[in-house]
């Protein structure tokens, strides 16, 4: 796909790109129509990639994208002898948690077919749910708070919201049988959300201009835009609130 600045392309280039993107009418479309259609196409793709609730934030590091379109060449690297396609899941009952950013983790899991059979033979019906827990990790893991997420049997991954900073989280996969009994199937590794000093000490930034300059002057563009980061945005939001107060 076009990576940037499609407005700069000539009509013949735009037509070439559009044909490669599968737009049948490209040869008869005018420049404006081509631009609108391609932009729409890319927006649709971007939203399908990032999903709902996750802001689309294109990377500013344009590396390795040396052609305008993804080529539809026959040149696809074929598998070597004996190579099988990847399975969708692995035959184990296990859940894994991956920290994406301070507010979100990604959980993926699988349930071993034998565990599923056992469940099916032990009760008439059952459902699955995830329990996301804030925990204190010490000699023994202590749950501080938790919330449940209803999932379907077909689900195998989920983005988990992490509401509090500076805590450890883990996610457990449970079943609930037709009598309302819950059973633990597996528990993930823990992940820790970062704790930031200035998120809880914004008053120091408010009262100390030098400190503010020292810390933030290297984080803003010449045009005054701050580096893209949710925790920094929160610090600034808190500061603004204090100033208003």
């Amino acid at each position, binding site marked *: *796909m076009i990576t940037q600045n499609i407005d700069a392309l000539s009509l013949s280039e735009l037509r070439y790109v559009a044909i490669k993107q599968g737009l049948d009418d490209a040869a008869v479309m005018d420049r404006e129509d081509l631009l609108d259609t391609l932009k729409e196409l890319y927006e649709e793709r971007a939203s399908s990639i990032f999903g709902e609730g*996750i802001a689309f934030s294109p990377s500013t*590091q344009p*590396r390795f994208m040396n052609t305008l379109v993804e080529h539809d060449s026959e040149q696809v690297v074929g598998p070597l002898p004996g190579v099988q396609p990847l399975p969708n899941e692995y035959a184990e009952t296990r859940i894994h948690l991956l920290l994406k950013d301070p507010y979100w983790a990604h959980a993926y899991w699988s349930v071993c077919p034998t565990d599923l059979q056992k469940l099916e033979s032990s009760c008439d019906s059952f459902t699955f749910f995830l329990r996301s827990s804030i925990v204190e990790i010490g000699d023994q893991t202590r749950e501080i708070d938790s919330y449940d997420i209803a999932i379907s049997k077909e689900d195998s991954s989920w983005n988990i919201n992490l509401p509090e900073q500076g805590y450890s989280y883990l996610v457990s996969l449970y079943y609930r049988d037709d009598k309302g009994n819950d059973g633990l199937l597996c528990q993930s590794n823990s992940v820790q959300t970062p704790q930031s*000093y200035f998120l809880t000490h914004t008053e120091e930034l408010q009262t100390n201009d030098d400190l503010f300059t020292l810390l933030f002057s290297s984080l803003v563009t010449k045009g005054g835009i701050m*580096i893209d*980061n949710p925790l*920094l945005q929160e610090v600034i939001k808190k500061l603004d609130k204090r100033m208003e107060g």
Partner: protein
Amino acid sequence: MLNRSSIGLILNAHMPYVRHPEYPRFLEEDWLFEAISETYLPLLRMLNNLRDEGIPFRITMSFSPTLCSMLTDPILQGRFTNYLKLHQELGEKEVVRCGVEDPESLPLATMYLEAINKNLEDYFELYHCNILIGFRDLEESGHIDLITTSATHAFLPLFSQYPSTVGAQIELAVQSHINHFKCRPKGFWVPECGYFPGLEDYLKDEELAFFQLSAQALVLAEEPVKRGNYAPVVCPNGVFGFARDFHLTNLVWSNVEGYPTDPEYREFYRDIGYDLPMDYIKPYIHEPEVRVFTGFKYHAITGKGPDKVLYKPELAARKVADHTKNFLYEIRKKGKDINKILDRPPFYTLAFDTELFGHWWFEGIDWLESVIRKVAQTDDIVFETQLDYMERNPEAQVLQPALSSWGAGGYADVWANGSNVWIYRHVHKAIERMEELAIRFPDQTSLKQRFLNQAAREVLLAMSSDWPFIMHNDTFTTYAESRIRDHLGNFNVVYENMCKNAVNTEWLVKAEKRNSVFPDIDYNIFNPHSDRNRYNG
């Protein structure tokens, strides 16, 4: 001079491992060839000229092990030669065509042809097809410090739960660096600035003294940072961390307001590979009729619209001079503010992908040269490497940096989002199984050793940050996805065979030929209990 600001420039040279001897020409191999001809060779020429003229400069450069492997690969060296010769032929044809049909573009066609001829001469006569020699020479003469990065440029925070594997990525990188540059690296480029607390422990074990960080890594730490990003911190274990200056970096890097967006500069996206008729350009693009960039670009950025004016190098050169002045003005302006409140002169860490200069930003190498020349004439600014600074200022604030990256959002979202997060189920499983194999079958010899070594290569290649990055950007996704699937599928061949105490020799011979990176690899590096492995979690 007391208040002398330091520019700590780090250039990261990296390309994913792309090598397909099974095809006569492979489109994605052009990534490497374009980088060599548009960035690495012109950069070497520029740095050598400065050195020859006695202009002082000190910069840090990181070379990824995958790039080093490709730059020294005889097959790719031969193919790069073909690439240069093909482009030389196109250049000669363009000079004739422009002379008749497009005389205004003739000086540009001649300029490109001369650059190709110079590249051919340098590549053969100076470097004997191995350009790493040129960079090693610059290190030996004291002009650059060479450092390494993780073996396959893996985004390490997403693998932090696998200590042996993170350790393997770093230990192998150090080995590769020693093989290529004949000395131990002293610093580490953290791929994508992807830092997680504890990464420094692996670096210390490999005697790596410093690494670079994203701009927000210090201000978001658990303890208050005292000098902002204007001085490094030292992690509790003694390894230094340098956070990059987003403000200064953005003057160059931003595709919205950075210098490279100036209308007088050359437009990257207008290229005769797309503009000229198919019957003329066909021999110089890819089969079957896949239009690609040829490097012959005759237009200036001009503006957002499609009407582009002819590129005028002399106007661009004036802009280079203006942007040099502006950059130094920004440094001085910043220094004036910071010197009032900082207890020592500021050190500005500027970290870039090397390929920005020359390839993406055609005038970038001229700009860099111009900045180095101007700095050499002043006494209030100096180019200084991270190692120089650490030697001069061994005292630094002890601070644990925060989890961070330089990707959009500042964390792992680029490498773990809806488009690519599915890969981790499989890559993590392969890592676990690789560690299991290394424990179950330690110190094998002969065929089994080769089999397990190839498995280790496949796992490492599957960990590369490039594939999820490309998938995130929705470019070349078919290729990126097929690479991930191939490496993991290849690994599974070894795992399943070893579980049956068998070796698939047909597969092994072909896999060794296809993915021949890290010839000296020892799969025992994945064994968390091995005596040779210090990363036992």
